[in-house]
């Protein structure tokens, strides 16, 4: 496979002491987190725990009030958000945020907007179609007419068009039927096999712990627990709170 398709897993992503919020409302109180190259890491927790805010801080859509945010030796708090795809960071936002009035292929084209990505457009597009043959069938269809699962494929495909080293996924299972949720996590597994680093934020704790190596439990803006997926899945407190077990 050519270099355009199979990127390295990039450097380590490391956050510490991150405080952030909106106006008077503080969502994150000193969150620390690290993602090693090639790892898949989950951030789980209830609604309103600050999971989406955390990803938005990483993508530069919100600036932290305190704390450090480093990608390799780069201080991401000083990088304008639109330069992140060029550094190899791609963010699949909450609710997918496709462009409903553009076709599937045009959505992929917007994902390949950066100068460095344009040169690889055709190769990467074909690769996305190989990963998600359904997208190839629907390439000329408007993205707004896709089913929920297909939209998630399209959103992930769009993110892959920038040739990322790390993929940030925000609630990929949100709003999808249980069967489709299964399929989406299969997609995430396939993305992992591509050699990408993955950071995934999810409410669906049971599912995400099957896909990631490690996870952080976020509760009201603080890391309440962290560990390897298997350990967390076996932890009685977490089973009680999130897995409906005893």
């Amino acid at each position, binding site marked *: 496979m050519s270099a355009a398709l199979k990127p390295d897993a990039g450097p380590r992503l490391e956050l510490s002491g991150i405080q952030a919020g909106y106006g008077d409302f503080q969502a994150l109180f000193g969150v620390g987190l690290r993602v090693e190259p090639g790892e898949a890491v989950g951030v789980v927790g209830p609604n309103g725990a600050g999971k989406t805010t955390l990803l938005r801080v990483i993508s530069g859509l919100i600036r932290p009030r305190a704390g450090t945010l480093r990608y390799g030796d780069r201080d991401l708090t000083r990088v304008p958000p639109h330069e992140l795809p060029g550094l190899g960071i791609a963010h699949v936002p909450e609710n997918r945020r496709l462009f409903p009035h553009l076709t599937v292929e045009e959505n992929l084209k917007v994902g390949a907007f950066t100068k460095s990505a344009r040169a690889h457009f055709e190769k990467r597009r074909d690769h996305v179609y190989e990963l998600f043959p359904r997208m190839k069938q629907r390439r000329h269809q408007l993205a707004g007419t896709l089913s929920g699962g297909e939209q998630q494929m399209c959103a992930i495909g*769009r993110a892959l068009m920038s040739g990322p080293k790390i993929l940030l996924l925000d609630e990929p299972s949100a709003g999808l039927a249980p069967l489709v949720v299964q399929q989406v996590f299969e997609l995430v597994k396939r993305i992992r096999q591509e050699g990408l680093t993955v950071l995934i934020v999810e409410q669906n704790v049971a599912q995400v712990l099957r896909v990631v190596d490690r996870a952080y439990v976020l509760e009201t803006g603080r890391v309440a627990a962290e560990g390897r997926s298997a350990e967390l899945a076996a932890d009685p407190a977490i089973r009680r709170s999130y897995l409906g077990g005893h």
Partner: protein
Amino acid sequence: MDPFFLEALVNGILLGGVFALPALGLNLVFGVVDVVWLCYAELVMVGMYTVWFLYTQAGWPLGLAFAACLPAIAVLGLLLHLIVVRPLLSSPPINQVLATGGVLFFLQGAATLVFSTDFRSLGVDMPPMEVGEVFVSGTKLAAFIAALVGAGILWAFLKFTYVGTAIRAIARDREVMPLMGVDPQKIYLIASAVGGALAGLAACLLVVQLDVHPFVGLSFGPITFMICVMGGLGNMLGGFLAAFLMGLIISVGGFWGTTEFSYVVAFAFFIIVMFLRPKGLFAR
């Protein structure tokens, strides 16, 4: 069919082509930047003076004066964005409207100061052509073809280029654009320049048909806004189609009554459309 009625139909379509360009430019800027350039017709007016000055005063060949007008008004669009619009991007819409409305009066005043209120004519005309039973003004036909070519180039730009695709995307969801590696501020600049260039092209097509004076914008500005609103603000295709509809109404209305009457019909039609389809004729 009555050849005079046929002629009115043909003239309506030709008129629609000329209305289409400023409607496209206004819609493009509104769709991308989310600000209405109230002074759009005055950008066209400055473009008309540019052509008139270069051709009749500086002695440039007409083609060269046309070629200079497009980039000149594109730069004017850029300056309008940088100086007036960008500082107000996060202000309430009413402030943005008032500010671009202020530019309207500024440009009218500046033109009066520099060129006086005299009507200036380019003094060029192409011979009328006879197509079947209908006489068609050569100038209007040439302007119509140029307008269609301009609209076609704009369509291809929006459809096939990366920047054009991003422009169509940002019109729907600007917040997500940085995640695509797109700097919205840069797209705003490009859209403002393209919107200016369209005003420049419209100026070239109008200056051969109308005398230019500081208030010439009033003769097509209100119609342009009506067309945009009727097609659905920000909806490029809707505005394009509405331009032809308005051209036909005005021309055919003038055939049955007077030209003044035709504008009454056009505005009445607009008001009825606003009652029946407040989001525009072509709203989905």
